[in-house]
């Protein structure tokens, strides 16, 4: 595993800068490079999963969870029979259930479209719970940010792929308006980054084939051209 401290000092050495003197890049800039790299890697590959458990109060419309992209699995009544919830969309609920707003019962479906109002991922329930219900969701999660106060903490990416973060930091460093700007070098590091990210994508998708399937369904929810999943999906 690569710690944030080792990643940062390697970055400074490769760009010919020194941590502490910071001739070209400030610590805040470098930290920003790393966090942007982590988010980009997380969005491109969905390598991080997060298990959320909680209680949905009776009549609640849904739950909002921070630092996640989208759910890929939901379960209700987790302390009892543990019913699996299926992914759907608000469009589909509106078309399929006349009295959807007043329906109460066992949680069977969840959706995320037309709900987000802030940074958190808002998951809606259908039907709304008739009583307090324990729930569990698995999300594609946002990787943890690095922090200069925690240099010995490992960067939040699979150990073998740590270099991807370094490459993306260097790609940004050689790209922004600075004395170090060199688009050719920047492009080289982007190629290295893409190469590791491609490998990571394959590892994530080959790990659980069905996850790729459920991700496809989730993506359909955000497809603005075809608002509803196609009938054969």
């Amino acid at each position: 595993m690569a710690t944030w401290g080792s990643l940062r000092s390697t970055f400074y050495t490769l760009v010919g800068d020194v941590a502490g003197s910071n001739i070209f890049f400030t610590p805040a800039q470098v930290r920003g490079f790393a966090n942007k790299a982590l988010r980009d890697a997380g969005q491109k590959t969905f390598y991080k999963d997060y298990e959320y458990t909680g209680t949905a109060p009776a009549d609640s419309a849904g739950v909002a969870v921070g630092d996640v992209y989208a759910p890929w699995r939901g379960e209700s009544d987790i302390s009892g029979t543990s019913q699996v919830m299926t992914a759907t969309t608000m469009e589909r609920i509106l078309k399929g259930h006349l009295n959807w707003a007043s329906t109460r019962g066992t949680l069977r479906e969840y959706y995320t479209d037309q709900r987000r109002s802030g940074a958190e991922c808002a998951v809606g329930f259908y039907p709304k719970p008739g009583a307090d219900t324990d729930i569990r969701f698995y999300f594609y999660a946002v990787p943890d940010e690095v922090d200069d106060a925690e240099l010995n903490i490992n960067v939040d990416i699979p150990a073998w792929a740590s270099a991807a973060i370094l490459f993306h930091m260097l790609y940004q460093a050689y790209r922004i308006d600075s004395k170090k700007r060199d688009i050719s070098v920047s492009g080289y590091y982007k190629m290295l980054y893409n190469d590791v990210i491609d490998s990571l994508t394959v590892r994530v998708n080959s790990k659980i084939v069905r996850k790729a399937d459920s991700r496809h369904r989730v993506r359909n929810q955000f497809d603005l051209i075809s608002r509803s999943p196609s009938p054969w999906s």
Partner: protein
Amino acid sequence: MGSDINTGTLAKLKEVVPHQIGDNRRWSEDIVNTLVTFVAGIAAERIGFVHVTTEIALIPDQLEYSLPTNFISVTRAEYNPDSADAREIMPATLRDFDNASGAWRNTKGLRPEQYALVGTPGSPDCVVYFQPVPSAAGDVKLTGVGTTSDEVMDDVQDKFLVPYVLSLLYAGDELDLTMDYYNEAMDGADDLRRLYADETMEGI
């Protein structure tokens, strides 16, 4: 033939760029060793030359078990591997668990028949689920492609680690040379993968 991944690769790099690595030289040994460590992860994933194992002690009623971070993928799981009741545990997904039993979290059995991963191997939060949930103690041996910080073959050092690290060292100064070394590493990876990823030589 092989040698320690860091000291061996460093020695080979010093042969390719003599008098340029060390104290008061163009590159310090520290930065070279750090880059070797980063590139070693890429080499392990791309070439698949390291196979790692771990033994998980099953605890009755426990659903989740952590996967060590030196795993890149899990290729085989065996229950009580060294005993007469040894069995292979088949890969699956949580959806497969659902299909087998809606109440799989509460379904217990003496011997796990399937396993599923949540999280990505290599991450500290990657966990293994077994189904049925073990009701008794036992051992599971997991085998997979992984990473190493110990000895690696000279071929891996010569054909991948050395040129890849050189491509990084030269990247800020000499881009043509950088690309040349990178292409050498990619060619080397293809050769090495054919040799080491599947030593039964099937599918080549």
